[in-house]
């Protein structure tokens, strides 16, 4: 391929990959933009002030989203650390079947399940509550939490655990002072995955959270459907920041030795 051909192909690819993102950034910076202008007519921070004004909808939604995501991480870890340790180290009948059971929420088209969860939650008065949304997010995130945590425990050097036991440490003490700290980076990685999944989740919140729980993705959706493209673009950028930032650091937490044991 000549360098001209290569340049055209890469230019086109960059346009396809980055074009939609560039359009989002333009909308976030635009104050006025209407046909037939190819670029925004005027730029400004008017809409940023509107989005981030104290006690505004967006700030409240951001808080709701972060609170739900943190609670989901806590719930997932509380369930996944014991389960992951058992899957990695203890005697367990039907081990493969159990691992696959956690994959199920990701292996079925989830929308049809969410509408039925919403219907069941109605009887328990969980619809429109943060707790209901957290439950839904937790089930969806468990596969990352359990699989990665199990891999992290499996990657811990067994000899170190045995040495601690030989020196007279109890099983619990060995777990707390040897296994858990050594598995911590992998557990951190799973927490990041769960956090991002929860922060970005749309469909489950759409059915279970209505009408009272409005997370950032739902707020963005509402703004976009109403034609407030500036508000939608700014909210979308806020959602992008943690996704991109976390993924830049994920390789530090998720090392190859853990990665190779995921799902094994």
């Amino acid at each position, binding site marked *: 391929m000549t360098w001209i051909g290569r340049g055209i192909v890469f230019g086109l690819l960059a346009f396809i990959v980055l074009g939609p993102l560039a359009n989002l950034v333009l909308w976030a910076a635009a104050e006025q933009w209407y046909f037939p202008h190819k670029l925004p007519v005027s730029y400004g921070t008017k809409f940023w002030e509107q989005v981030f004004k104290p006690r505004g909808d967006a700030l409240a939604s951001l808080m709701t989203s972060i609170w739900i995501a943190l609670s989901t991480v806590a719930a997932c870890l509380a369930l996944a650390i014991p389960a992951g340790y058992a899957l990695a180290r203890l005697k367990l009948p039907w081990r493969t079947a159990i691992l696959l059971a956690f994959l199920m929420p990701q292996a079925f088209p989830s929308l049809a399940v969410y509408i039925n969860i919403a*219907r069941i939650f109605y009887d328990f008065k969980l619809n429109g509550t943060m707790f209901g949304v957290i439950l*839904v997010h937790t089930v969806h995130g468990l596969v990352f939490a359990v699989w990665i945590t199990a891999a992290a425990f499996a990657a811990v050097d067994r000899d170190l655990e045995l040495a601690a036991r030989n020196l007279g440490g109890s099983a619990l003490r060995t777990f707390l002072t040897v296994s858990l700290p050594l598995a911590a980076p992998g557990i951190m990685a799973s927490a990041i995955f769960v956090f991002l999944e929860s922060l970005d989740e749309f469909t489950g919140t759409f059915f279970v959270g209505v009408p009272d729980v409005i997370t950032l993705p739902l707020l963005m959706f509402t703004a976009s459907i109403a034609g407030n493209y500036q508000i939608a673009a700014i909210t979308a950028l806020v959602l992008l920041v943690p996704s991109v930032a976390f993924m830049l650091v994920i390789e530090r937490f998720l090392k190859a030795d853990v990665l190779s044991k995921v799902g094994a």
Partner: protein
Amino acid sequence: MRDSGRLGPLLVAPALLMVLALFVYPLGYSLVTAFEAKGGGFTFGNFAKAFEFYSVDIGFTLVIVGLSTLLIALASIAIGGYLTLGENPRAVALLRWLYRWPLFIPFVVAAQCMRSFLAKNGLMNNTFVALGILEVDQTTGFLDWRGIVITFVWKQTPFVALLVAGAMASLDRSTIEAARNLGATRLRILFEILVPQVMPTLVVGLILSFVTMMSVLSVPLMISGESPTMMTVDMAFRINNYGDYGTANALGFISYLMTAACAWFYLKRSIR
């Protein structure tokens, strides 16, 4: 260690119960409701209604998701192939940096990007007009089923390409070098040596993408909420406007079947 064999099941139980209560039970509920008449009792009426009203959308869902899966497969083979066989290190590095961008972008955000980018006077058409490729009155928007396909391919290709490129990178280089020494073109090496060996990884990535695309609601709602659109939109509509769980669950059942057919195809391949 003193492992009585009871501790393991005990530690797994809470997490497993969570999945049973909040996934398996609602799933079973949806399967039952799909065959249940309004007043109770077994019926196929929900399916009759689903096909009567939404057969076009059921077809379009298959076309949209099927076409997207095909395009994702081609694009990720091309990206993985170039990353493995590319001879210009700078171009390879550039591609590696470029293709991953949409990987972690949420579907809602991808939909919002595309909603503005693909519109009749969005950045895409504006660029074409500015470059003199199109006249202003020749532009058309892509905010219909084509826009859904474009959004899905844009969002899911990096995920599959990442898996495929990883699998290709871990293959034995010596067969590639041998084929190259014998004068095989890079295209032939790609399709006769690399692709057959990474097929299992490619298929797993494609199936996961297929299931994900089947359950996304935000993209069809934001790109093209009007018929013809995807079944997810119809399900949400039946619930929110009529509280009609029978028809919605019948549509859900059909979407399970589509996924199951896809998984069956995979299992058949991997057993052979």
